[in-house]
C-alpha cells in the first residue's frame, strides 16, 4: 500500500462518516418538522395527547430531541417505533435490511455479469449481430426505469404464471425465496446492466485505440489476449468510477421495486415510517441506508484506486 493510497482511503472514510451523520441528522429534523404526528390519527383528548407527547419527549424543543437522538444512537439505541407499537427500531431494521441487501447485491451481480462482458463484446465486434442486438436492448432498457420495469414484469408474470408475483414467503425455505427474488432482481438489475454495458462498450472502444493496446497488437499478441487482458484493464477505470453512483442508483431503484413488488425491505419500511410520521423509524432507516451507501461508495473508490493508482494521488 502506497502512502498515497493510505491517506486516500482515510479521507474517503472521513467523508463517508460525514455523509451518514448529515443524512441522519437531516432525517431526524425533517421527520420532526413534518406536520402532525402519529397521535393525530387517534381520537384522543388534548390532555391525553399532551401526556403521550410528553412521555415520548415530543414536546421538547427540536434541538433537545435531536441531541437526545444522537446520544441514544451512540449507544446503538435507535428508539421505539410508534407505527409498530412496542417494537424497537433496530429490530425492525434488522428484519428488513437482509431483504434489501439480498435484492441489491443480486441485482449488482446480475448487472455486472451481464453488462461488462456484453459491453466488451459489443465494442470489439461492432457490426456483428450480437453487438447490434445488445445495443438495441440496452437502449430500450435504459428507457425502462425500475418502477416501470417492475410493473411490466408483474404484468408478464401474472399473465404467464412463470414466477410468483411479489412478496416474500415466510416459509418454503431457500428455493421459494429464490423464486420470489427473480422478478425484483430483474426489475432492479436490468436497467443497471444496460447502463454498464453502454459504459463498458464506450470505454472499451477508447481503450482499443489507446497507444499501449496498439503496441501490444503490433507485438503480435493474439487479439483475444489484447482485448481481455490489455484493453479490459484500461477500460475498467471509467467503468469502476461509476460504481459509487450505481450504489445510489440501486438504493433509489430498490424503493420502487420494493413498493411495487411488495418486497419487505428497508425502503418500504422508511416509506411506511414517513407516512405514519414515525420519526424514529425514519431516522433509523435513513441512518442505516446512508451507512450502506457510504460503504458502497467507499468500496467503489478503493477498487478504483486499486485499478488506477493515479486516482489516489489526484484527490
Amino acid at each position, binding site marked *: 500500500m502506497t502512502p498515497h493510497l493510505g491517506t486516500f482511503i482515510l479521507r474517503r472514510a472521513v467523508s463517508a462518516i460525514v*455523509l451518514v451523520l*448529515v*443524512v441522519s441528522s*437531516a*432525517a431526524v429534523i*425533517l*421527520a420532526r*418538522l*413534518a*406536520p*402532525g404526528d402519529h397521535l393525530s390519527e387517534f381520537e384522543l383528548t388534548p390532555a391525553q395527547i399532551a401526556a403521550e407527547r410528553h412521555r415520548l419527549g415530543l414536546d421538547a424543543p427540536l434541538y433537545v430531541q435531536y441531541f437526545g437522538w444522537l446520544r441514544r444512537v451512540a449507544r446503538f439505541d435507535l428508539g421505539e417505533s410508534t407505527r409498530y407499537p412496542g417494537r424497537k427500531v433496530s429490530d425492525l431494521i434488522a428484519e428488513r435490511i437482509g431483504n434489501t441487501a439480498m435484492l441489491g447485491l443480486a441485482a449488482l451481480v446480475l448487472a455486472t455479469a451481464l453488462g461488462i462482458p456484453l459491453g466488451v463484446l459489443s465494442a470489439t465486434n461492432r457490426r456483428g449481430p450480437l453487438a447490434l442486438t445488445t445495443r438495441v436492448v440496452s*437502449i*430500450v432498457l*435504459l*428507457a*425502462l*426505469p*425500475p*418502477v*416501470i420495469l417492475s*410493473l*411490466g414484469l*408483474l*404484468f408478464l408474470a*401474472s*399473465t404467464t404464471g412463470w414466477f410468483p408475483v411479489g412478496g416474500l414467503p415466510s416459509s418454503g425455505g431457500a428455493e421459494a425465496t429464490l423464486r420470489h427474488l427473480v422478478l425484483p432482481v430483474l426489475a432492479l438489475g436490468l*436497467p443497471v446492466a*444496460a*447502463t454498464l454495458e*453502454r*459504459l463498458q462498450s*464506450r470505454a472499451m472502444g477508447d481503450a482499443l485505440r489507446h497507444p499501449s493496446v496498439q503496441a501490444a497488437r503490433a507485438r503480435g499478441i493474439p487479439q483475444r489476449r489484447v482485448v481481455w487482458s490489455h484493453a479490459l484493464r484500461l477500460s475498467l477505470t471509467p467503468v469502476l468510477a*461509476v460504481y*459509487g*453512483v450505481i450504489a*445510489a*442508483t440501486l*438504493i*433509489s*431503484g430498490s*424503493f*420502487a421495486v420494493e*413498493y*411495487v413488488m411488495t418486497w419487505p425491505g428497508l*425502503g418500504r419500511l*422508511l*416509506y411506511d415510517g*414517513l*407516512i405514519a410520521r414515525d420519526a424514529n423509524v*425514519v431516522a433509523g432507516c*435513513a441512518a442505516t*441506508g446512508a451507512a450502506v*451507501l457510504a460503504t458502497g*461508495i467507499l468500496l467503489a473508490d478503493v477498487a478504483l484506486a486499486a485499478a488506477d493508482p493515479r486516482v489516489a494521488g489526484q484527490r
Partner: protein
Amino acid sequence: MSGNRLIGAALLAGLIVAAVFAPALTPHGPLSQFTDFENAPPMRPHIIAADGTVVWPYVRPLKLIDRLERRFEATGDEVPIRLFKDGVLLSIDESRGPWFPLGTDPLGRDAFSRLLFGARLSLSVAFVASLGALLIGVAVGGVAGFAGGRPETILMAIADFVLVLPAIYVVLALRAAMPLVLSVPQVFWTLSVVLAAAGWPLVARGVRGIIAAERRKEYVEAAYSMGAAPSRILLRHLVPACTGFLLSIETMLVPAFVISEGTLTLVGLGFPVPSASWGAMLRDAWQGAAFSDAPWLMAPAAAVAVTVLVMQLLGSRDAAETVSPRQTV
C-alpha cells in the same frame, strides 16, 4: 441535426401536441365515468366491412354481457368515425354506445382520454421542475465558477453531497415533510420545488466547470478591459456559453422527473385521486391488480418509456450513454 435528433424532435412535438390539444383529441373527459363499462377492452377502428369490402373506418360499440366477469361483446353495429365533430378530432355517434380507443380503467373511465390529459400534468410538472433545477444550478454553478476560492469549495461540496444521495429518497423525504393530502395545484408546485431541489447539483457541477474554464478566455478579458461589470460578464458572456450543456442536461432531467412523478404518485404522495396523471393511472392499474385481464392499463407505462426514449434521442449521444436518467433522480 442528426437523424436521431430529428426523430426525437418530431416525437417530442407529438407528445406536446397530444398534451396541449388533449380536449380536442379525446372522445371523453378524463374524469367521466361509464359505470356500465368498467375494464372494457380497447375498441380499435375497423376498415373492412362484414362483406369484405374496404370502407370508411368504423367502430363496433361494446355491450356489457356479464358485469361480474366484466365480459363485453361487440354489438353488430358498425358506427363510422366522424372527423371534427363537436370540436373533437375523431369521435363516433355516442347514442349508439361510447367509444374507448384504449379501453377503460376499473372505474369505467376512458384510458385514452386519461392518458392524454395525464400527459398534461406529468409533462408539465417535469418541465417546470427541470426549469427550476436549471435556474438553481446556473445560479449556484455560475457563482461558484465565477468567484472561485472558498465559495466555490463550499457550494460544490454541497452539490456533491446532494448528488451522491439516492435522489428518490431525497424527494420522498421532502415531499413527506409536507401535509400528506394536498390539492392538485398544491401538489403541482410542491413536486416542482421538491424535484428541482433534488435535481440542481448535476446542473451546478457542469455550469461551474464551463464557467471556470471560460472566464480565463480572452473575450472575457476584453469585456473587462472595456469596463463591463462582473455581473454583466457573468450574465451576458459566461452563462450563454453554457447553453449547449443546459440543453443536453434538460434532456436528462425531464425524463428523470417524469419517472419521479410516476413513482411518487404511484406510492400515494403525488397527484390525488381522481386526477389524471401517468403516475395516477399506474397507481390505479397497480391497485386494481387487474393486470392479466386488462393489459391496456399498462399504456401509461409505455408513455413514460416513450418519453424517456424521446429525450434520449434528443440528447447528445455522449450524455445518453454515460448517465442514465435514474442517476440524476
